[in-house]
């Protein structure tokens, strides 16, 4: 069997969940691509690789890392870079992305996307880390974060920080529209104004997800529910400006059945069709 081309079509895709495997193979799945968290496929073998190999014979793939800790002060984990590079060679994903966040420090790996101050010092460190990643793994997209607190020492607006990273490293951006809405709520800014200053030309993939409302008015990037109406309208405003992009529905917790998830992806395709 020959693989479909690596490039992701400018359509909706979904995060691959093993419980949907049979339904997807019974297909056609009606989605343009699947995305996986790279770290879930770093075992030596077994069912995860068997499923991903079969999936890749049918669909383009997006590889999304959640553990590289690009936004931390410590040197990147070389072994982890090699693991990512090996996955990229093996599965030939159309895109590889990581986060503007850190997750590892002296205490170990904290299994969360943690925030960093945005300063000229951290900008330099992050750019060095992205350069190193792109040398070892290949070109990457960087995702805008969802954060719950900010640092007093931050001196560069996030959108400016991301634009400067793109300028210095040549990486692309993954725009998570839900993260924009989460941050807007948590930090009290206008999501429209954020998007107006976002370097949209560099956006090569979009993420959509549902968030949760926590006590004390905080929005939590929970990936456990449908995309909110406000996020759909922000999404429409973005693709009206830059055109359709590969768009991922992220639904990682309280994962719904396949018809529900694929219907959410169909909504993203319908939104794109409506805009154009």
């Amino acid at each position, binding site marked *: 069997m020959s693989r479909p081309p690596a490039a992701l079509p400018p359509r909706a895709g979904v995060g691959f969940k093993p419980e949907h495997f049979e339904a997807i193979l019974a297909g056609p799945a009606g989605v343009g691509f699947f995305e996986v968290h790279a770290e879930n496929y770093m075992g*030596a*073998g077994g069912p995860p690789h068997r499923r991903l190999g079969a999936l890749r014979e049918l669909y383009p793939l997006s590889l999304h890392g959640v553990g590289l800790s690009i936004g931390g002060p410590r040197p990147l*984990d070389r072994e982890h870079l090699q693991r990512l590079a090996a996955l990229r060679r093996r599965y030939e994903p159309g895109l590889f992305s990581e986060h503007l966040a850190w997750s590892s420090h002296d205490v170990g*790996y904290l*299994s969360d996307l943690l925030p960093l101050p945005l300063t000229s*010092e951290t900008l330099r*460190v992050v750019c060095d880390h992205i350069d190193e990643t792109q040398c070892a793994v290949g070109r990457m997209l960087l995702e805008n974060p969802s954060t719950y*607190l900010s640092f007093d020492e931050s001196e560069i607006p996030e959108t400016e920080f991301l634009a400067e990273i793109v300028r210095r490293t040549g990486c692309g951006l993954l725009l998570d529209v839900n993260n924009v809405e989460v941050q807007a709520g948590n930090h009290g800014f206008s999501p429209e104004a954020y998007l107006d200053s976002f370097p949209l030309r560099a956006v090569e993939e979009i993420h959509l997800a549902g968030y949760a409302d926590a006590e004390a008015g905080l929005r939590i990037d929970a990936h456990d529910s449908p995309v909110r109406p406000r996020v759909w309208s922000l999404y429409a405003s973005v693709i009206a400006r830059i055109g359709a992009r590969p768009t991922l529905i992220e639904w990682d917790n309280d994962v719904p059945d396949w018809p529900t998830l694929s219907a959410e992806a169909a909504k993203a395709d319908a939104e794109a069709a409506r805009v154009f």
Partner: protein
Amino acid sequence: MSFEATISAFARALADPHAPPAGDARRFAVYRNNVAVGLIRNLEARFPVTRRLVGDDFFRGMAGAFVAREKPRTPVMIHYGAGFPAFVRGFTPAAELPYLPDVAALEDAWAEAYHAAEAEPLPAAALAEVASERLEGLRFAFHPAARLIEFATPAASLWAAHQSEGEPAAPELWAPEAALVARPQADVQVRRLPEGGFAFAAALRDGATLGEAAAPLIAAGGDPGAHLVGLIQAGAVAALL
């Protein structure tokens, strides 16, 4: 504060639930909760029967105590929890459940077998092609997914009884057990080893010849041929050496 100092303070405050928050307490609590819940959820997925045996609340408390003490060393979370069975063995509130760490050890072996490297298992017919005078000197390469594990409790029977929904049956006999965990193809399989089977299989795995491994079995009146065929049929062996 320098970048290094800011992140070090943040990480220390996250790792220690009794440390003061780094920044606004209400907002920092979201991160503290994310880290703990994320790691606990991983353990819940890796140790489902252990969890069922003690209930959700007890498990969450026990897993929470473990994650407070031991963070993953790498972002490859599929190996996180290897230290959990030993932690459960020393967890005082569970001291009256001697089978609990055994079941956790079995589930950990299951998870490692699930992610182990691929290899073709030795076909059962391969043994028939070996000249009889060579049999005694044979050595075996075990399959990368194969795990042998010995318990002071009937942990394998307990585990098996909890593989389906509904009220699990109690083990017929409350006695020590041993198990082989294997994944010859896609599916992980757990088998109870017969009397003498653990020592025999462990000797072969550790490089003994068939003759060396069989001697104690023969002395005890066992049938090494049946044990060996059982191991090969279960997919525990990858090659003859």
